[in-house]
């Protein structure tokens, strides 16, 4: 079948590209803060498939298990329809890429532009153990959120690919959750047709010894909007890379993130916003609370190409060091080749304000409670961007809980 061959061809091409550089390392500019090669000199062998009972138990423990959703379960990288809760509708198509590539996905799968070389997305395709393609038709508003639930366990690598296409004026909410696994690499391609909107909530807790890499490549057409919120937590290693390409006027993306890290946690929020057309907006705000010996990273590049007048771009990255051994790096970058643009960027790393801490204590609030209040106040600017709803409430609760682990109170 032609479609299956199409995937094989794409995988082979991706494997060739991935082989040129191997595992990304710190001498590659985009990976200077996240030396994946030091952590995993060689990509591990593909992880074994999980037995159904174990996968089912892990799904039941998922933070969003109680949220009513159209749920797509990936266990150790493999899409498991039997554990998923799919409600097929004419306006919603979900295709298991293990069965080949549906015709409608051919122009998109493996084709969505990433503004820079994305070696891990290539590896996710080359080593793809499972994948789905999701299409939401024109003018359709998907009421229930789509939940991509990735459960992993044991040694070995998990590679997965997802394609999501929202056609013109389609609207949806996407929840992504991740748990466990030695090495989890997933890449998502997103196409937002004209005036489509997607709210994306990703929760990626990483325990010590766990590594995950997430690459999102988004093509955003005229009038469409992506509203992304990523929460990273824990003592493991996570890289969240989002590449935005605007293809029509008045497209918008709001990227927000909270990292709450403990132990030797490492969270790298990397963004590339490529403004090649006029009047588009990218608005980024990332905040981190770093405890223990953890490291919080933000590197964001905004490219405004010639002619992309009317671009409005904002980048703000702030980190709070909750421990003397924690570290934060922020590198906002602007590359502007157009005249009529509004671009701002800011970054700050510091401790809680001593005057504010004293003020609260001088009003009777004990030091631990005062620190918690100030830390939550520090995050309030970004958490206020979370939408209403059960899934966002879970993220809010996870942030409060993770602050305790990070020793932030």
């Amino acid at each position, binding site marked *: 079948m032609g479609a299956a061959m199409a995937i094989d061809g794409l995988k082979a091409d991706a494997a060739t590209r991935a082989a040129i550089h191997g595992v990304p390392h710190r001498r590659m500019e985009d990976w200077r803060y996240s030396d994946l090669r030091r952590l995993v000199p060689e990509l591990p062998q593909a992880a074994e498939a999980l037995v159904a009972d174990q996968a089912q138990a892990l799904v039941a423990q998922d933070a969003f298990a109680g949220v009513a959703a159209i749920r797509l379960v990936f266990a150790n990288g493999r899409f498991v329809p039997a554990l998923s809760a799919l409600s097929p509708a004419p306006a919603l198509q979900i295709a298991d890429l293990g069965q080949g590539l549906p015709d409608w996905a051919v122009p998109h799968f493996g084709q969505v532009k990433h503004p820079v070389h994305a070696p891990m997305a290539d590896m996710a395709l080359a080593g793809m153990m499972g994948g789905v393609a999701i299409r939401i038709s024109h003018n359709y508003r998907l009421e229930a959120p789509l939940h991509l639930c990735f459960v992993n366990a044991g040694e070995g690598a998990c590679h997965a690919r997802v394609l999501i296409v929202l056609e013109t004026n389609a609207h949806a909410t996407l929840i992504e959750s991740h748990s466990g696994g030695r090495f989890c690499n997933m890449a998502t391609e997103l196409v937002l047709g004209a005036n489509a909107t997607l709210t994306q909530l990703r929760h990626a807790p990483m325990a010590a010894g766990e590594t995950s890499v997430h690459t999102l490549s988004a093509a955003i057409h005229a009038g469409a909007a992506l509203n992304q919120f990523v929460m990273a937590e824990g003592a493991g290693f996570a890289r969240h890379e989002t590449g935005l390409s605007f293809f029509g006027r008045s497209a918008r993306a709001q990227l927000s993130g909270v990292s709450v890290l403990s132990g030797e946690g490492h969270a790298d929020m990397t963004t590339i916003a490529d403004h090649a057309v006029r009047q588009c907006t990218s608005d980024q705000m990332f905040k981190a609370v770093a405890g223990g010996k953890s490291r919080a990273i933000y590197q964001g590049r905004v490219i405004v190409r010639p002619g992309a007048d009317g671009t409005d771009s904002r980048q703000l990255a702030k980190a709070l060091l909750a421990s003397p051994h924690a570290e934060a790096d922020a590198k906002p970058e602007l590359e502007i080749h157009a005249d009529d643009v509004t671009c701002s960027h800011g970054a700050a790393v510091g401790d809680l*304000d*001593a*005057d*504010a801490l*004293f*003020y*609260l*204590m*001088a*009003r*009777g*609030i*004990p*030091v631990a*409670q*005062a620190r918690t*209040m*100030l830390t*939550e*106040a*520090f*995050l*309030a*600017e970004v958490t206020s961007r979370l939408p209403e709803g059960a899934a966002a409430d879970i993220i809010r609760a996870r942030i409060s809980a993770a602050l305790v682990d990070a020793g932030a109170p």
Partner: protein
Amino acid sequence: MLTIDDIHVAVNGKEIIKGLTLEIRPGETHAVMGPNGSGKSTLSYFLAGREGYELTAGRVLFRGEDVAGLSPDQRVARGMFLAMQYPVEIPGVATMTFLRTALNAQRRARGEKELDASSFLKLVRKHAAELNISDDMLKRPLNAGFSGGEKKRLEILQMTLFAPLFAVLDETDSGLDIDALKLVADGVNRLKSPERSLLVITHYQRLLSHIVPDHVHVLAGGRIVKSGGKELALELEARGYDHIIKAAA
């Protein structure tokens, strides 16, 4: 109420207060006046228990208890309060949430029952109205973007809610126009009682026309160089600090 017994206080290893003694009895209002750099703010922060204000000699007793080992919040729970010269802006903490958290933290520390949301709201609304503080102001982030007058009124609202036994008012008049000054002073005067003592720290006499002290002390070089009644404040206003300090030396 408060016994300050020959204290020496250092900040970053530098001695700022150099042998200060003061006895404040229940119901008394004392004013400490002094030129810039005399140690007025150091005294107020030190009494509130701020980190970095190190007692190198002497002691402070609050109702007979040595406060040396008490953290700022523990002092507040026992009935001490400092109305600050520069109330800190804290974006991200709603004023109302802060007030309730603070009051309940104090009550908890004293083993009292915490106030529920509705009785707290009633209490705040009553006192806020007296100080011309709107609901809108209470909904805003704590002190963020408040005018000088709004900040000072909020300090006095807190003092009213917390009902301390002893309060230090540090330069409460700074940044206030005449109307705001009167509003704030009226708020303080409502709190005067035979059980409550005040220590008013100020550079200028004008506040003391509104909050009339029983005793006035002149602080210079980290020590009290002269004490007197309320007329001493007027003398300072008329003749200046230099004259009084030189005469006292």
